[in-house]
């Protein structure tokens, strides 16, 4: 579903992504972990070209990601994205947030878009918040609304860029539950996260990044119980002790 080859990205002098290769199969849940600044968010943002890579190729569903314009917009319509800061449209209600892209991009009628939106809001457990402005919702509710908004486009892949990092601890669970449900339903997912429990529970494969490279990748139990590289071992020792 996603195929990345030889991806390089610089921010000025800083080499953020270093010859990254990554394959994500249809229905696979890949969790990307690693220390801050390891390039995992940048990698995620390159997949739908919110960041433009400097070299390398990215194919989504067999199609090279276009450089710009309408072709890029069409590709993005098929790739859902959930952000750390939710990024719900502040001037619209939750329901309108979910309806906007299907009506404007897919040309779905308002009635049908609303029906789908209400179904999705019910699925993520916030049906009763539909008429509210995003600022009136808790962080966890906002992030679930953002997931519903992405799902409304019926994406082939969902990208999650640290979806729980901006949440109060007691709200992390409700968002992870929705994501776990999605994974169980067979959604193809790339999840950048610090939630090791989620990685262990929901991932088909864990990708460990450090210094802009993919250092280690493997099936979650094997990775967490017996990491092969020193850097992965160091990282896990730091994050799993508390």
């Amino acid at each position, binding site marked *: 579903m996603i195929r990345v080859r030889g991806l390089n990205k610089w921010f000025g002098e800083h080499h953020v992504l270093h010859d990254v290769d990554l394959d994500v199969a249809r229905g696979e849940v890949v969790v990307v972990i690693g220390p801050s600044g390891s390039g995992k968010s940048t990698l995620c943002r390159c997949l739908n070209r919110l960041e433009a890579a400097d070299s390398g190729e990215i194919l989504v569903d067999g199609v090279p990601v276009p450089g710009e314009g309408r072709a890029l917009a069409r590709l993005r319509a098929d790739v859902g*994205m959930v*952000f750390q800061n939710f990024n719900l449209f502040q001037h619209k209600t939750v329901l309108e947030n979910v309806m906007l892209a299907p009506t404007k*991009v897919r040309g779905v009628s308002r009635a049908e878009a609303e029906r789908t939106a209400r179904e999705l809001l019910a699925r993520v457990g916030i049906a009763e918040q539909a008429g509210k402005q995003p600022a009136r919702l808790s962080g966890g509710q906002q992030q679930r609304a953002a997931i519903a908004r992405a799902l409304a486009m019926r994406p082939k892949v969902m990208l999650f860029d640290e979806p729980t990092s901006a949440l109060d601890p007691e709200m992390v669970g409700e968002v992870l539950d929705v994501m776990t449900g999605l994974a169980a339903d067979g959604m193809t997912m790339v999840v950048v996260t610090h939630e090791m429990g989620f990685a262990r529970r929901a991932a088909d494969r864990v990708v460990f990044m450090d210094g802009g490279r993919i250092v280690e990748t493997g099936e979650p139990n094997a990775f967490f119980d017996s990491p092969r590289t020193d850097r992965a071992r160091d990282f896990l020792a730091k994050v799993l002790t508390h």
Partner: protein
Amino acid sequence: MSALLDHLPEFWQGLVVTLQMTAASFLGAAAVGLVIVAMRVGPVPVLRAVATVYVETLQNLPLLVLLVLAVFGLPEIGLKAGLTTTAIVVIALYEGAYIAEALRSGVNAISAGQGEAARALGLTFGQSLRHVVLPQALSTVVQPLGNIFIALTMNTSLAAAVGVVELTAAANRVNLLEAQPIPIFVGAGLAYAAVAACAGFVTGRIERRLAVAR
């Protein structure tokens, strides 16, 4: 006072021209401002450069110079239009640069994540600007736009210098007959003040109406 009351029809006619010019040139300026800001925050380097040069040029020239150049220069190159029309177009182009800058400050005040989220959903740059970024940007710059509207109202008086008989020119004409500048220009000034006060009132209403919870 009688100087004012005896010539009410002339004043009224001048005020009507001023209001027409204000309305027409503000609409034009809004359209120009939207186009320029879309170019300026857009992804195409050439359009960004053109928009930047446009804003810098028009903001750095006095409106009176532009009016004189247009009124006397354009007929030289075969472009002929009525005085009032010419003045409206020049004021619209000039104030459009200010509106573009006000809108741009609004766009900058909106977090980049809003535009990213819109584009990530498959909206084109134009759609994300129209449906997500500009509506929010607009709600943050209602006051500056109101100020531009008031400045534009006052600036229409410069058209008097190139022969448009709007409120200031009408007052001037009456004064040539009556030689009572103080009541005549105080009267004209009060009319401008009334327009500005209405604009201020409407601006406040619109601002409350568009307020976005964050």
